[in-house]
């Protein structure tokens, strides 16, 4: 019978680390408003 193996806590931190200084890109659309928003 299959039992769900408990993932050792330490391993959870083995995921690919984000590079230092990673900044998610701002959404590229919609663009900036040039006059005013209606």
């Amino acid at each position, binding site marked *: 019978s299959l039992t769900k193996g408990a993932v050792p806590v330490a391993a959870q931190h083995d995921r690919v680390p984000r590079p230092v200084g990673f900044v998610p890109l701002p959404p*590229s*659309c*919609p*663009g*900036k408003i040039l*006059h005013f928003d209606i």
Partner: protein
Amino acid sequence: VPAAPPAPLGCDDPESVAAAEAAVNYINGHSDHGYKFALNRIKDIRVVPQGPNNAIIFLELDLLETKCAILSPTPLANCTVRSFAEHAVEGDCDVKLQKVDGIISVLASKCHSHADSSEDVHKVCPDCPLLASLNNTEVLEVVSAALNYYNRKTIDSYLRLLEIGRAKIQYHPVHAVFAEFAVGATNCSAEQAKANVGACQLLPEDQSNFGFCTAVMVKHPSQDLQVDCQLYGHQVPAPHIPLLSRPGVTYAHPGQDTS
């Protein structure tokens, strides 16, 4: 390893702005009603590669109406965008373009324009006059009175109405009607028109001379009418492909006097 697909274009990237400018020039160049529109915002852009140096671009644009009539020779860059308090009109456009070897061309364009809501305008400016329907009786009366008044005073060509561009009615602190309308010069002088106005026809396209008038009629407490018309002089006529459908607007047939 296959080359990674190019990063998706951002809406403010120079390439997107160039495509949007091409689209706005196309829209203004292929309309002969109303006013020129200026870019307010690139809402979305999608690029579909078609092969080396060949891509289809889909743009979603927010435009804003300017104060320049569509037939005005004023460059778009010099056209002031109508402010919020003047009851702005927005254009929503979907445009399909193609870019081949760096050259952008418009394949198709569909636009819809709509005025800002009265509530929004009054939030910013409680007493600002609001846009009126262009077949409002008061508006038609003011346009007719203004054009007749101008034709009686002018020593130049007799002018006929092409279309009413916009009109607003104010009730406080005075009751006033503001109207803007496009006109065309006819083959009559004002004197000849007095004798037989039915014979006065708009000049043929190769001699056309369009213009634009603004009129203000204060109706209360005392009646006062001010009219100002500017003729553009002869220019190459715009192609007749009206694109910006203008909701709730009726256009007088060229040369038809308002009555």
